[in-house]
Structure formats: structure tokens, C-alpha cells
């Protein structure tokens, strides 16, 4: 079967929320410390303790929102330990991840300063698992109250007079697991209680995010929506792509087999079914789709790099990860009526990172390049498209060879993102662009591909996998014909003149 795509440039389905391109930073391994925070006295070039190279790289991809402080870490995080003079802050062991000493030098002020540097929205994950209602309430007061109050006065004493704008606040994290091992009935009641005291102060309007299910736990979604849907703005979903059969044997990040390539992409595609089915449950209680689905932890999860601390979750990142990113972002676009935010886990040095660091060195991963190429979709109008894809088969299994999405930006430019999942075969694609009234088209493209299926970037060879201009297309009989390289992610830009 050949590949054909029809894009209706005059049929807008909705807006692709830029927050779908969000990221996640946890006090885990070397994500916060070393990856973001090096301290003011570090020889690594920094501004107020935050790495300059990382800030520049994340601004370049227009990071829209950053989630913090966890993850599981959020379930034991007590924010008051992380404010005030750094030398006086509590020191503790990070029991969840690696057993390392946490000195709390990166706390609320530092995170919100980072977000100001990045010009992105902060998304704070509050502690329901081991924190109190008062603690959560006072955190919101500390960050956002503009007036006379004990928390506002404490904030001023800590050198921040004006409150911050904090829109996104998660009331709990993974409360079905590390966040308290709760039943959905119990969590729903706790959500109702805790969120009552997450107040709006002044002009700051909090977007309250309830803890949603893990993967295909549809019962969790049903119960929490049934019991609390009118009190939330969004609900979360966590799903990781793990090629192995078990969590203790997830498979390597490099040097993987043909089966592992295929299984990884097949499992990444499952995100579509998960969102579809969770959305159907949400529709029962929220048919107008007021409530957003926020996939605030997603990405690949492999075995750690050999010789590294298993609690640091450090893994390399290959062209396979780039395909997972491209596929998943296209899926999020298709569900943009419900998916209002997503946060890749995690931004630096942990799981499917966009950036890896070691001392003063930094390298951009293939996943970073996908986020860079796809940033043209942020806040663009999703266009109706239909795809007929050749099958990509292995043994008795079959998935689509192609993943496609198209959008139109505010300037009228059309962007088409195409993923060829097959690591051996090219994909010839006929693209029928309708609704442009015979305008002359100026087309250009960018491609990310590799010659080996586990090609990746290292500190020694940082550009093994890097975007390049794409020229393998032509107009013929009124259709755009493109030849996609094996294992490639391509973005075409079409300007109708």
C-alpha cells in the first residue's frame, strides 16, 4: 500500500495548546542539581546559580511550561525547607532517588527565577502524600498573595517583594503510588479537601490539576472524575514507553535489538488509545471538554547507562527517542480538544531528556531537535488531515509506517510533521493540499534521521544526529510528493502566495 495524506487547509479543528510542548524537572539524579542548578560559585557559566547554556537551549525551543519539584519527590517535598538563606536550609536525604544529600539550595525562589529566565509558565506540584492542607495553602499564599499576610511578609523578608504569577498547581502526584498508595475514592475526597484551600489571590487565578491515573487505570479516572470533576480545571495522566516486558528489564537505551525498536514505537503509539479511552470517560462528566487532560509525565524509560547509579535514571537518547517524541506529539495534536498540556520526563539528564550535561559540557539530544523542529506547531491551528499509511510489519504485528500532523500558524504558514517509523524502508508520500485555492506554494523542509538505529549524540560527537535541510520533495500533478528517509522525523513548511 502507498502512503497518501490529504490536508484540508481550510478546515481548522482547534488550537494546539503550546503547553503540549512542556517539560518536567524533578529533584532526581542530575536533573536539578548539575543539570540546571550549579550554584553561583561554580566555574560553569551561570546566572544567579543557573546554567547559562541550558537556559539558552531551552529558550531556543520555546519551552512553554515547566513542572517542578516532582514526581515522587513532590510527595515528600516540604517547601518551607527550600526558602530563606541557603546556608540555613535543611539538609536531607532524597529517599526516593539515589539516596543523595538534598541541601534544598534549589527551592521556590530559584525555580520561579528559572521560569522567569526561560519566560515559561511554572507548574508547581503540591504535596498531598505527606504534606498538610495548611502547608499547601501557605505555599500558594507565599507565592501569590499581594498584601499583608504572614506568608507574604516572609516572602518579602526573603528578598521577593512582589508575588509571582503561578497558574498551574497540581494537587498531588501519583497518589495511586508514591503519593500515598491511595484508592481513587480516598484521593478524590482528599482532592476535594486540599483544593478548597488552594486560593486565588488578587489577579492570580490558579488552574487546579487533579492527580489522574497511571496508564490504563480507567477506574481511577472514572472515580476521581465522578467525585470531583466540578472542582478541577485539569486532570493528569502518566504513561511511559517501556519496551521490556517488566520494569526490572526495560531494555537498553542504545545497542537495542530490532524487536526492541519495533516494540518501543508500538508502545509509544498506545498513547493514542489511552487518551481516547480516558477522554471518553471524561466526556461522561464533562461533555463540554472544559477539563483538560494533562499528560504531565511521558517519554521513554530504559535501563540506566551501565556504571551509573540506578537511582539517577540516566539514559542515552537515540533516533528511536526522536521517533517516540514525534509520534507522541502528533498524537497530542490530534487530541488537542482534550489534551491541554504535556510534560516530557525529564528535561535534563533523566529519562528521555532533551539535554545531557557533564560538568561544563552540554549536548542536545535527538529529542531536543524534534522539539525544536515541532515548535512551529505551538498555538497553531490544527488542520483536518486524513492519512492512508503503508503497514510497518514485524512477525505477526503491524503498525502504521507513517505518523502525520498538520497545522497553520498565525501568519498562515502550514507545517506538516511526518514520522517514518520504519528503520529500513523509505516512505514515499503523496500529500494532497486542499483548500489553498490554487495559490503558488513555496515549500521547504527539515529532516532528522540517522544511518544507525541507535545513533545518538555524545559529548565527544555532539552532532551525530542533527537536523538537516530536506530536499526530497517535488510538486507533481498538483500534489506534493515527498520521499522520507528510513527512521526519520520531517517537518515541511508550506507558504501559499
Amino acid at each position, binding site marked *: 500500500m502507498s502512503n497518501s495524506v490529504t490536508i484540508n487547509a481550510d478546515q481548522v479543528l482547534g488550537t494546539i495548546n503550546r503547553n503540549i510542548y512542556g517539560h518536567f524537572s524533578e529533584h532526581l*539524579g*542530575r536533573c536539578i*542539581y*548539575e543539570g540546571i542548578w*550549579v550554584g553561583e560559585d*561554580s*566555574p*560553569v557559566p551561570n546566572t544567579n546559580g543557573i546554567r547559562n547554556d541550558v537556559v539558552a537551549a531551552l529558550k531556543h525551543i520555546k519551552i512553554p511550561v515547566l513542572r517542578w519539584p516532582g*514526581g*515522587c*519527590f513532590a510527595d515528600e517535598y516540604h517547601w518551607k525547607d527550600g526558602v530563606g538563606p541557603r546556608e540555613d536550609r535543611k539538609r536531607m536525604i532524597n529517599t*526516593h*532517588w*539515589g*539516596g*543523595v*544529600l538534598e541541601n534544598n539550595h534549589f527551592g521556590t525562589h530559584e525555580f520561579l527565577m528559572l521560569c522567569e529566565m526561560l519566560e515559561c509558565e511554572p507548574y508547581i506540584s503540591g504535596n498531598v502524600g505527606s504534606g498538610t492542607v495548611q502547608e499547601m495553602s501557605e505555599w500558594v499564599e507565599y507565592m501569590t498573595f499581594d498584601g499583608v499576610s504572614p506568608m507574604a511578609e516572609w516572602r518579602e523578608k526573603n528578598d521577593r517583594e512582589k508575588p509571582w504569577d503561578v497558574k498551574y498547581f497540581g494537587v498531588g502526584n*501519583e497518589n*495511586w*503510588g*508514591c*503519593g500515598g*498508595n491511595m484508592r481513587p475514592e480516598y484521593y478524590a475526597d482528599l482532592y476535594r479537601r486540599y483544593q478548597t484551600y488552594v486560593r486565588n489571590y488578587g489577579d492570580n487565578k490558579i488552574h487546579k490539576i487533579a492527580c489522574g491515573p*497511571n496508564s490504563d487505570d480507567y477506574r481511577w479516572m472514572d472515580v476521581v472524575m465522578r467525585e470531583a470533576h466540578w472542582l478541577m480545571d485539569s486532570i493528569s495522566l502518566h504513561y511511559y514507553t517501556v519496551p521490556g516486558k517488566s*520494569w*526490572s528489564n526495560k531494555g537498553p537505551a542504545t545497542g537495542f535489538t530490532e524487536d526492541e525498536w519495533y516494540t518501543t514505537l508500538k508502545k509509544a503509539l498506545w498513547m493514542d488509545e489511552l487518551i481516547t479511552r480516558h477522554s471518553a470517560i471524561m466526556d461522561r462528566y464533562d461533555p463540554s471538554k472544559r477539563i483538560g487532560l494533562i499528560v504531565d509525565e511521558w517519554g521513554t524509560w530504559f535501563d540506566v547507562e*551501565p*556504571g*551509573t*547509579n*540506578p*537511582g*539517577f*535514571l*540516566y539514559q542515552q537518547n537515540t533516533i528511536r527517542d526522536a521517533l517516540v517524541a514525534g509520534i507522541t506529539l502528533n498524537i497530542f495534536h490530534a487530541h488537542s480538544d482534550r489534551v491541554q498540556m504535556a510534560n516530557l520526563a525529564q528535561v535534563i*539528564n533523566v529519562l528521555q531528556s532533551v539535554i545531557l550535561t*557533564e*560538568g*561544563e*559540557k552540554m549536548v542536545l539530544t535527538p529529542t531536543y531537535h524534534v522539539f525544536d523542529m515541532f515548535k512551529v506547531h505551538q498555538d497553531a491551528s490544527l488542520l483536518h488531515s486524513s492519512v492512508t499509511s503503508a503497514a510497518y510489519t514485524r512477525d505477526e504485528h503491524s503498525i502504521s509506517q507513517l505518523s502525520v500532523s498538520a497545522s497553520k500558524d498565525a501568519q498562515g504558514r502550514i507545517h506538516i510533521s511526518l514520522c517514518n517509523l520504519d528503520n529500513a524502508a523509505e516512505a514515499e508520500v503523496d500529500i494532497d493540499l486542499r483548500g489553498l485555492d490554487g495559490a503558488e506554494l513555496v515549500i521547504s523542509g527539515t529532516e532528522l534521521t540517522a544511518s544507525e538505529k541507535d545513533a545518538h549524540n555524545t559529548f565527544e560527537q555532539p552532532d551525530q544526529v542533527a537536523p538537516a535541510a530536506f530536499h526530497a520533495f517535488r510538486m507533481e500533478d498538483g500534489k506534493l510528493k515527498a520521499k522520507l528517509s528510513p527512521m526519520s522525523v520531517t517537518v515541511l513548511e508550506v507558504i501559499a502566495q
Partner: protein
Amino acid sequence: MSVQSPCKGCREEYRATEEQIDRLLDHPMFQADSEISVPDSVYLGRLEQCMSCPRLSAGTTCLVCGCFVRVAAKYRNRACPLAGESRWAKFET
């Protein structure tokens, strides 16, 4: 009955132990005469530096690169990643 928690952070496989490191170092590639490993005298000198480094965590892990130092110090082509004050260099014969 053993119940596997759905929580990611509570799993035993994320705990670092000396036994894990011993198992890694049992691999032939880490024998002193291999093409990858440094001679024992260099190895011990590197480890001595690591053990007095403020960026060593729990006696096992370099916080700069996330590696077990007993493993990282074995590699000929590695250098201490500490920014601005690397404690040991690549080993070149």
C-alpha cells in the same frame, strides 16, 4: 504475598549497592590488562582522588556525572568531569 507497587521510585532496583558495583567490575572488560581499563596503580590513584572529592555521594556516586566512581575510574578514555578542577585525566600510554 509480594505486591509490586505501581510507584516508580519505590522499586528495589533503584537502590545502589556495593554488590551491584562488584558485579559490574567482575566483567572481563574491567580487568587491569584489558584495552579499556587503566592499570591498577592508576586506578587506585584516581579512586583516592574521588574518595576525597566533595562531589562524591554516599561513598559510591559522582554527582557530576552520575557514575559509580569505582566503575568510572576504570576507563582509560575518561577524565574526572569536575568543572574547572578535574581531579584526574584520561590515561594515555
